[in-house]
């Protein structure tokens, strides 16, 4: 069973993702802001991180960059989930180190499939 950290300031979205991923057999940890998410990543060492971009205290992009710059966390797959859909935003997301980029509104089934795929690629 893989551990997935979900970081999003929207309670409804977190509940939805938690429901979907738990139904797919994952253990889900939820945080509602960037700093909490980074702290949870350090303490819980999840197998994958699902990050919103626009969050209080620390943006998803900053969290992603922080994860990539920490040698102990750099290998954790990161999926960005955001309403920012412009080409330039997608480029920035991948440049910050994201392994995948999902645009809101999203398909929960597709999200679950993508999380499974990044976990599998990372051997987790």
């Amino acid at each position, binding site marked *: 069973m893989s551990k997935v950290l979900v970081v999003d300031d929207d309670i409804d979205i977190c509940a939805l993702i938690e429901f979907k991923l738990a139904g797919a057999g994952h253990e889900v940890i939820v945080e509602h802001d960037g700093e909490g998410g980074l702290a949870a990543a350090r303490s819980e060492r999840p197998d994958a991180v699902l990050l919103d971009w626009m969050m209080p205290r620390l943006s998803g992009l900053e969290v992603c960059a922080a994860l990539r710059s920490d040698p102990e966390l750099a290998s954790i797959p990161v999926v960005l989930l955001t309403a920012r859909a412009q080409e330039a935003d997608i480029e920035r997301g991948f440049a910050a180190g994201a392994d995948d980029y999902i645009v809101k*509104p999203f398909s929960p089934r597709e999200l679950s499939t993508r999380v499974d795929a990044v976990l599998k690629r990372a051997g987790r």
Partner: protein
Amino acid sequence: MSAAQVFGLALVALSVGLVAMVVATLFAKTWRGVRARRFARRARTVRPLLLRALDGDAVDLSELRRGHGAEVGRIVATGMLANVRGTDRRMLGEHLESEGLVAAAEADARSGSPRRRLIAIEFLGAVGRPASTAALGAALRDRIPAVRTAAARALGRLGSASAVAPLVDALAAGAVPRSSVTVALLRLGPLAEEGLLVALDHEDPVVRSVTAEVCGSLGLTSARAPLLALVRDRRCRTSAARALGRLGHPDAVPLLCATVEAELSPARARWSDDSFTIAAINALGSIGDRRAIPVYESALGRSRLVALAASEALRPAGPRRSRRSTALRSLPGGAAGHDTESSATDGASR
């Protein structure tokens, strides 16, 4: 009464008023907090039901049809539907409909409570069933502006061509802000084509103008002929010109050029319509046909904004660049703030 007594009474009245205001503010804040906590508590029981419905479970949602459960259920469902797409979204929408929640919301769209009407309308928009068009169309005539605007927004989310006619009627009646109707029509997209083509011939010039802009933004090439006709209508021609620029078809060039030249003629010097002239020049620039170059050059000698539009349109025109530079330098203030030399990569691509 002496002046001192009057002053004293006034001070007492002011103090009482201030205290009452503070108490009322504290009470309102406390009450909002109570309501928010109550909502959060109720949402925690409603959310799992909706999540299971989204997952395809045949969950009993009867408690969400009426009363406080209906309000909380609609708000949570609206938020959930706004964030998802695909199979899950479809399954949740179908289940909400089969459980009678859509019909209940359509009934509540006529409720005596504006808050209940608003929540029901937002919910109907989020579920997006074309059958809700009638209920939402009626809500466009609501006495509360926020409800009318919400109805327009909801109609834009229905994904049905039947939503166009009520939106156009609301636009003609001035019942809903133009921006809300425009966004709703844009959201309907190419589905709205037939209704928009009809609306281009509407008796109200505001409707014709808004529809022209929407047709241009949607890239509806079928609107080309009616838009060309609207260039001859002084009340709508600016919107028509902008739309033709977005469509980008060279068919529009001769008429736009002729109309701009007419505006630039000495006979119209005192009554020239700069907003149309600028829109038409920008449109010609977007189309990028070299037949328009003489028009740009004529426009360089006019008002500053018209000359700027013309100089921008000339920018990719290559060998004509030097004339643009000369014209810019002759403007009041010279070429300050405007680059007089285009990039070296400008060519005769047009």
